[in-house]
C-alpha cells in the first residue's frame, strides 16, 4: 500500500492534443480516489500514466516513495482492471489469476494459496477450470478483479470497470467493490464517467474537464459546495438548476429572476465572502432540485415561488417536478460543456423551449402535484449557490478564490 502523488503532470499526445494539463493531486494511502468527468476529459489518460501505459510529458508521478516516471508498468507494483476485462481468452480462470504471479517467479504453493484465497473471496471457486468465454459478464468482471487482488499490489487502478455490465449487476458489483476496498484497504484509483458511481464509491472524487482538475473533495463537499458551474452541474442527479439573476436588497437581500423574487437570509450572504459586492449586479444562481419542496409540505420559513408543473416523474419515494422558468438558459462555457456531454452520451432529446429554461424540483411523494397544474414551491434559500457570470466560479468558495487568483496571475 502506498500513497500516489501526481505533481504538475502533463500529457501531450503527438499531434499536440493536451489530454492532461498540469494535474497535481495527492492520493492518500488506502484511499479510494475516483476520477470523474465527461468523455475526453483526460481521466483515463491520467490513470494510464499512473499505470505506466502512457508516457508522462511533464511533471512527476510518485507511488510510495519512488518516482515512477521511467519505470515500466511491471515494476510499479500496481494492478489494473480494464473496462472490457481483458482476460486472457486461452487460459482458464485459474491460469488467468496465476499469470501475474508466475511471471514474478513466485513459488507454486504461494500462487496456489493466493489464487484460492481470491477465488473464495470473489465466489469464483467453482469456475476455476473454465475459460473466460464460458463465463457471464459479472463473472468475468470478478475474474478481472481477482487478477488484481492476487498480486497484492501497492495500488489498484480501475478504468471504468463496471461500464460493460447491465444496470442491475452494476449496482451489486458497486457494492462488492466498496466492500472489497473496505476489507483490503488498498489505495485505489477508479475512473468513471458515471457521477453516481463516483459519489457512492469515492472517499474523495476528482472532477476533471479538458485535462484540468476542477475540484477534488469528498462527495458530500462536492455536492454542497461546488467550485464552479461545471462541477455544480456535473455532480448531482437531477442536475442543479441555473438561472441568471439579479442580487438585490430591498427589505432584505433577495435574488430576482423571471418575475420571481426569492428572499435570501442575511447570514447566507455574509457566509460567502465577497458576495456582498455583487448587490445590484447579475449573478448565476444555482438551486439543487433537492432544495425544493411542495409549498404545502414545507417549512413555513422557506421562500415561495409559484410555477406550472409541465411534467411530473413519480419515483415512488419522491416526485420530480419539471417546469419552465421564463428566463433564457444560462449560457456559459461550463454549462454548454455539460449539455454537450449529455447529448454525446445519451442522445438526450431535450425539447428546446425557446427563451425558457427547464428546471427540476424534487418534492415529497405525498405532494398532490399533477402535470399542467400550478404548484406553490418552497425553496430552501439558505442553500442557494452563487456563481460569477464571467468566470463561472462559485462566489465565496475558498478554492474558487485561489483559482481566480491563479488566473489573474497567469494573465
Amino acid at each position, binding site marked *: 500500500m502506498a500513497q500516489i502523488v501526481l505533481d504538475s503532470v502533463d500529457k501531450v499526445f503527438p499531434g499536440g492534443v493536451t489530454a492532461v494539463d498540469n494535474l497535481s493531486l495527492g492520493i492518500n494511502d488506502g484511499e479510494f480516489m475516483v476520477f470523474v468527468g465527461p468523455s475526453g476529459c483526460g481521466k483515463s489518460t491520467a490513470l494510464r500514466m499512473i499505470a505506466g501505459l502512457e508516457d508522462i510529458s511533464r511533471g512527476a508521478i510518485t507511488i510510495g516513495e519512488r518516482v515512477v516516471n521511467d519505470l515500466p508498468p*511491471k515494476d510499479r507494483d500496481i494492478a489494473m482492471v480494464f473496462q472490457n476485462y481483458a*482476460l486472457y481468452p486461452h487460459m482458464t480462470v485459474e491460469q488467468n489469476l496465476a499469470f501475474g504471479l508466475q511471471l514474478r517467479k513466485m513459488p507454486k504453493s504461494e500462487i496456489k494459496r493466493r489464487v484460492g484465497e481470491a477465488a473464495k473471496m470473489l465466489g469464483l471457486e467453482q469456475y476455476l477450470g473454465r475459460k473466460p468465454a464460458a463465463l457471464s459478464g459479472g463473472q468475468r468482471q470478478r475474474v478481472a478483479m481477482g487478477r488484481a487482488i492476487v498480486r497484492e499490489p501497492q495500488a489498484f487502478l480501475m478504468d471504468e470497470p463496471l461500464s460493460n455490465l447491465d444496470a442491475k449487476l452494476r449496482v451489486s458489483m458497486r457494492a462488492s467493490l466498496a466492500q472489497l476496498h473496505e476489507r483490503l484497504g488498498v489505495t485505489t484509483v477508479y475512473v468513471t464517467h458515471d457521477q453516481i458511481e463516483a459519489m457512492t464509491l469515492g472517499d474523495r472524487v476528482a472532477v476533471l474537464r479538458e485535462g484540468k482538475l476542477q475540484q477534488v473533495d469528498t462527495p458530500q463537499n462536492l455536492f454542497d459546495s461546488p467550485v464552479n458551474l461545471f462541477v455544480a452541474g456535473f455532480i448531482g442527479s437531477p442536475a442543479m438548476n441555473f438561472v441568471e439573476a439579479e442580487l438585490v436588497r430591498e427589505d432584505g437581500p433577495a435574488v430576482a429572476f423571471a418575475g420571481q423574487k426569492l428572499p435570501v437570509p442575511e447570514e447566507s450572504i455574509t457566509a460567502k465572502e465577497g458576495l456582498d459586492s455583487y448587490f445590484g449586479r447579475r449573478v448565476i444562481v444555482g438551486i439543487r432540485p433537492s432544495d425544493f419542496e411542495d409549498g404545502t409540505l414545507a417549512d413555513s420559513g422557506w421562500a415561495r415561488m409559484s410555477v406550472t408543473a409541465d411534467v411530473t416523474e413519480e419515483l415512488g419515494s419522491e416526485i420530480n417536478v419539471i417546469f419552465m422558468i421564463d428566463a433564457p438558459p444560462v449560457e456559459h462555457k461550463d454549462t454548454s460543456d455539460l449539455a454537450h456531454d449529455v447529448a454525446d452520451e445519451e442522445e438526450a432529446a431535450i425539447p428546446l423551449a425557446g427563451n425558457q429554461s427547464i428546471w427540476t424540483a424534487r418534492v415529497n411523494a405525498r405532494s398532490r402535484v399533477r402535470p399542467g397544474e400550478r404548484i406553490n414551491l418552497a425553496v430552501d434559500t439558505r442553500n442557494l449557490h452563487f456563481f460569477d457570470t464571467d468566470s463561472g466560479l462559485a462566489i465565496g468558495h475558498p478554492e474558487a478564490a485561489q483559482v481566480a487568483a491563479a488566473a489573474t496571475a497567469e494573465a
Partner: protein
Amino acid sequence: MTDTSVAAPPERAEAAKPAATREKPPGRAGWFARSALLVLCVLWLIPTIGVLVSSFRAEDLVKTTGWWTALASPLDAAQWTLQNYGDVLLAEGMANSFINSLVVAIPATIIPILMAAFAAYAFAWMDFPGRYVFFVLIVGLLVVPLQVAFIPLLQLYGDLGISRANPFLGVWLAHAGFGMPLAVYILRNYMGSLSREIIESARVDGAGHMGIFWRLIIPLSTPALAAYAIFQFLWVWNDLLVALVFLGGGENSVLTYQLSQLVGTRKTEWHLLTSGAFLTMIVPLIVFFSLQRYFVRGLTAGAVKG
C-alpha cells in the same frame, strides 16, 4: 373476435421480420455460387479419382481399359495391385525424393513462420521509429518476382560456400525469404487485431515483450499461424523451380523434380505416372484436410482488419 384482431398485427409484424432476414443469412451462398462450386469440385475430383484408381491397377489393365471400368467390380481383388508404388518408390528413386521433399518443406515452413512472427509482433505492438515505413517496404516485396533473385542468390551462396556445404540450407533460406513478405503481412494484421487491453493487462501483470509474445501472442495467433503454415508448406512442397535451381537433380532431388523426370522418360507408362503423381499429392491432401478449418479462418481474419 376483437381480441384476436387486436393481437394479430404485432404478431404478424414480428413474424415477418425474421422471415425477411432469413432470406439471406450470412455465410450461406446462393444457388449460383453453390452450383459453381459443385462444378469446380466435380472437375477437380474426377481426374483425381482417376489417378488414384489407375495407380492401383496392373500395367496391362491400365493400358487397355479406362480406369472407370475398374469401378464396375471394385471387389475383384485380382485387378488391384501395389506393384506400381513399389516400382516408383524404389526403382525410380521416388522414396528418396519423398524424404528430400520433407527435408526441404518442413524447415522451409518453420523458419519463415518463426522469423515473421517476431517481425509481425514488433510491427504490431512495439513502438520504434519508421515502423510503418519498414512494414510497407516488406509488404511491398510481395510484388517482386522471385526469379529476379536467382542469379544474385546463386552468386552469394557460391561466395559463402553454402551451395557446397549444405545445399538444403540454401533452399531453406530462399524459401524463407520468398515467403517472408506474405507471412509478415498476414501475421501482423492478425496480431494487430488482438485486443490492446489484453496486452496492456499483461504488461501491468509483469510480462515483458518476450513473455507477451510467447504466452499471449503465439497461442492467440494460432489460426493465422496455421493458415500461413499450410500456405507455405503447400507452396514449398509443390515448388519445382526453386528446388531445381538450388538442388538440381541427383540424390538431392525433390518429388516435383522426380515426377517431371518420370513424365519425360516414361511417357506412356501410365501405371507409374499415376502412382508417382499420387505420391506427390498425398502429403498436401493430408495437410489441407487436417488443417482446413484454420485455412479459411486465418486468412480472412488477417485480411479483414488491416
